[in-house]
């Protein structure tokens, strides 16, 4: 039976596995292993209420190690992960101006990768996945060492953020202390740096790590809260918070924090490890042989667990920014009320610890919208209250409020160095990680019945904080509550840290000027050598030479890959700090595009002219483009969307090209790695050149389009007879050619079009143009035919040519 269940489980058939386990337990009697299997199956199906129940039983019947909670962890991550993806993680992208897409700190040695996103060099080197964290593009051939730092961003950051740059220098120093396991000095240097850059979450995070390593979990928690406050979208902040809370023995809070971390990034294995450990602490709180079975029953109370799960996972709305705030608050208020009520119910032996007026207490309970912040605190307050059951609930909450949620139970363990001994001494319900002493003996009432409450409210907090990643309003709320969690010493630091994040001290639009066009960047691109240009400017330069205009670095690979990705960071910086100028720049570009788009669109307009050969209406004309000016021309035709240009024959006079030509429509462009291209075109309208001009190196012309005149009724008969006769003649001429030549003609121009293909229209029958193109005629003769605006004239001319050829052949 168990094998069967395991098999069902391993094939992801979790509900079947759960059924089998349930039946086995019923039939064979309960064992820890069976309950664990059942719990895992339930967890993976998302039935956490029942899963918790089973896990509890598993702990009751045997020893369960944290590693065995792997499936609970997976199940929980799956649930929160979905919620996050539903809510859309948009904050990350928007904030990446001067910040790294990975560590979210001020860019240090910024490297822009081919997708256009920018990261610290170290962050990129650390990431072996070669996947951009912002757009998920995989850069298989990415070699970070071969990409130079982005020169523009480096200068910009040094100039615009002098203090933060100094701070990041100090950070490096601090990191070296960390590497040397000198946490005292690390804290000292980080503190110095934080004074310079109070809103650098990385500094706070690193100091948090140093504090945690020194077992100063209270300080670590304060820093972690700052980090989360500054960067609610940064997974590591939650990990730091979880780590500190774990160190303080707040396993439920820790579990929530780790889960928040994992919700944002499922790959953090250390968070998974700690999550299992924290869950293990929560679930193993009650020794299996604890006589207070009543407590166990309470703990496994499905109603409460259901509430937990429902309040977090079924109400996905809480994670969505568009969700009505009022209802979110109401939901929270409800959870708070329930928490308090339950805490009340479970408090059995109140130990008076100072008296507090009931009026103050009431302030916490009303579920008014405007009093959300105190309520938020009340969540924390209520939460802590359960951990110290000896206090009357209201008292405890208020105590928490005044003490800024300084986690009362940590004072219980004496060997935890606590600088703030003002904390109320209460009994900890949970064994501490460091002490490793089960605290049940000291606990007159089993702490277990408070656990669900605590988990419940922690998850409620979790939901708020997760939601805050998507909502500035909620962000404000959480930061307030987080601020309240600080001890007074850190409060001022914290207040200053909440000033708007990363405002440059100085800005200069000239730092954002393209070195080629001397204008604000438009669609800025970054070369592997770290230089930036407008995309179009660089393209133009690459038409001439495959090197960087600034450093002469080889850009062959850049060109071959036809990279076009705009450097996101610089684009955002321009939009944010020079919005008006950037809008103006966009307008100029639009105007230029409109000017290009006009080309060839109307009568008498100016068209770009390719001077090369004669083309004919309806006949294909493949072209090899290698000259820089024509590369530009083709690119402009494509970008503006006209996809056409004039083709004229070269002449030796001062005009440079023939007075008549044909519009060629681009059907396809195939690029070679070196920037040359083969352009597949087909002839369109004919034109007469009225005047000649130049544009960025290539020729242009004002033209008048030539249309065949409408046939006179008396000519229709003649034309039809001529067509039949000449088509046959051309066909005969073709058939007498050597088959090799025939094949070449067919390959290049296609087969001889049938007589009735495109009979009328502005250009006349297609077969006739085919004949003009294919027959071995002098270009001057071809040009003469091209300009004829009458089918009859053209056919007569063709007849003369064929007669002449026949005469010559027969001679």
């Amino acid at each position, binding site marked *: 039976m168990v094998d069967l269940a395991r098999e069902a489980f391993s094939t992801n058939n979790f509900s079947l596995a759960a059924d089998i386990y349930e039946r086995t337990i019923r039939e064979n009697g309960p064992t820890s292993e069976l309950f664990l299997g059942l719990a895992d199956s339930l967890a993976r199906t998302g039935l956490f209420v029942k899963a918790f129940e089973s896990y509890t039983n598993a702990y009751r019947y045997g020893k369960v190690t944290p590693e065995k909670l792997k499936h609970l962890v997976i199940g929980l991550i799956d649930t929160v992960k979905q919620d996050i993806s539903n809510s859309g993680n948009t904050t990350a992208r928007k904030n990446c101006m001067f910040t790294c897409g990975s560590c979210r700190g001020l860019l240090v040695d910024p490297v822009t990768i081919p997708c256009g996103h920018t990261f610290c060099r170290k962050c990129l080197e650390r990431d072996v996945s070669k996947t951009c964290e912002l757009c998920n593009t995989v850069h298989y051939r990415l070699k970070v060492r071969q990409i130079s730092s982005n020169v523009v961003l480096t200068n910009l950051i040094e100039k615009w953020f002098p203090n933060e740059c100094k701070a990041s220098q100090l950070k490096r120093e601090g990191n070296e202390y960390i590497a040397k396991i000198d946490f005292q000095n690390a804290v000292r240097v980080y503190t110095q740096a934080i004074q310079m850059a109070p809103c650098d979450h990385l500094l706070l995070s690193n100091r948090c790590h140093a504090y945690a390593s020194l077992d100063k979990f209270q300080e670590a928690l304060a820093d972690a809260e700052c980090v989360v406050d500054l960067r609610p979208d940064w997974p590591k902040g939650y990990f730091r918070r979880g780590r500190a809370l774990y160190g303080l023995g707040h396993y439920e809070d820790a579990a929530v924090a780790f889960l928040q971390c994992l919700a944002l990034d499922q790959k953090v294995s250390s968070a998974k490890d700690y999550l299992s450990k924290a869950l293990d602490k929560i679930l193993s709180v009650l020794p299996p042989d604890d006589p207070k079975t009543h407590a166990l029953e309470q703990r496994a109370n499905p109603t409460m667990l259901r509430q937990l799960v429902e309040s977090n996972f079924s109400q996905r709305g809480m994670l969505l920014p568009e969700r009505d705030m009022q209802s979110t608050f109401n939901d929270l208020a409800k959870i708070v009320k329930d928490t308090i009520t339950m805490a009340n119910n479970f408090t059995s032996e109140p130990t008076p610890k100072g008296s507090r007026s009931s009026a103050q207490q009431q302030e916490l309970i009303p579920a008014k919208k405007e009093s959300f912040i105190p309520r938020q605190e009340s969540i924390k307050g209520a939460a802590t209250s359960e951990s110290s059951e000896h206090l009357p609930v209201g008292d405890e909450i208020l105590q928490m409020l005044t003490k800024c949620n300084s986690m009362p139970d940590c004072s219980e363990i004496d060997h935890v160095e606590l600088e703030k001994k003002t904390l109320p001494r209460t009994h900890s319900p949970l064994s501490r990680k460091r002490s490793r002493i089960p605290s049940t003996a000291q606990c007159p009432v089993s702490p277990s019945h408070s656990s669900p409450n605590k988990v419940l409210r922690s998850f409620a907090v979790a939901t708020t904080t997760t939601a805050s990643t998507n909502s500035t309003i909620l962000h404000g709320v959480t930061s307030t509550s987080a601020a309240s969690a600080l001890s007074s010493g850190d409060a001022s630091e914290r207040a200053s840290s909440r000033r708007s994040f990363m405002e440059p001290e100085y800005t200069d639009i000239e730092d954002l000027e393209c*070195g*080629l*066009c*001397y*204008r604000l960047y438009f669609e800025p691109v970054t070369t592997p050598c770290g230089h930036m240009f407008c995309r179009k*400017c660089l393209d*133009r*330069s690459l*038409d*001439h*030479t495959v*090197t960087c*205009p*600034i450093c*002469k670095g080889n850009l062959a690979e850049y060109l071959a890959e036809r990279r076009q990705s705009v450097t996101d960071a610089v684009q955002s910086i321009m939009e944010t700090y020079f919005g008006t100028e950037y809008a103006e720049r966009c307008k100029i570009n639009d105007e230029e595009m409109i000017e290009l788009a006009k080309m060839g669109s109307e009568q008498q307009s100016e068209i770009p002219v390719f001077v090369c050969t004669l083309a004919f209406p309806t006949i294909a004309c493949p072209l090899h483009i290698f000259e*820089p*000016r024509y590369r530009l021309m083709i690119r402009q035709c494509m970008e503006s969307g006209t996809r056409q240009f004039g083709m004229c024959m070269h002449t030796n006079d001062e005009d440079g090209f023939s007075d008549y030509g044909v519009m060629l429509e681009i059907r396809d462009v195939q690029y070679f790695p070196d920037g040359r291209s083969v352009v597949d075109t087909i002839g369109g309208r004919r034109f007469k050149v009225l005047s000649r*001009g*130049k*544009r*960025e*190196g290539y020729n242009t012309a004002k033209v008048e389009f030539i249309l065949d005149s409408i046939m006179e009724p008396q000519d229709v008969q003649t034309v039809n007879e001529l067509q039949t006769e000449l088509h046959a003649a051309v066909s005969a001429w073709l058939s007498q050619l050597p088959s090799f030549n025939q094949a070449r003609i067919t390959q290049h121009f296609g087969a001889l079009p049938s007589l009735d293909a495109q009979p009328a229209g502005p250009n006349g029958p297609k077969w006739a143009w085919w004949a003009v193109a294919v027959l071995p005629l002098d270009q001057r003769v071809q040009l003469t035919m091209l300009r004829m605006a009458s089918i009859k004239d053209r056919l007569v001319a063709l007849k003369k040519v064929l007669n002449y050829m026949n005469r010559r052949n027969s001679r």
Partner: protein
Amino acid sequence: MSGLPRRIIKETQRLMAEPVSGITAVPDEHNSRYFHVVVAGPSQSPYEGGLFKLELFLPEEYPMSAPKVRFMTKIYHPNIDKLGRICLDILKDKWSPALQIRTVLLSIQALLSAPNPDDPLDNNVADHWKSNEKSAIDQARQWTQTYAKSNMNNH
């Protein structure tokens, strides 16, 4: 082609606002792409004390192609020929659109300080330079006195 590209306008403005020491470049009043340039002979060079007139023209494709620069004042230099044409890599194959009028003129100034007879344009001058550098320098100094002094008034 409508108007002057923004780049040329800006370059001109900047040249006017922050001139390079020893160099003046003034756009022609009829053609904004044509510049009248005067380069002072660098100190400790045979051209010291001379003022050399040049013409600089920005072609249609500028900055994708290099400016056309020519000495108008006669100068005895292995990399500058009788017609005033200059043998300078950045004006030919080493041109880059990131270079500008200012950098071109600075390079020409540097070329006066450091003639390079190994990459000559005028073989006679270059041979003279290589066979008897002192005599060549004297000649250059003499030419400077003769041609580059009087030109001052013309400009």
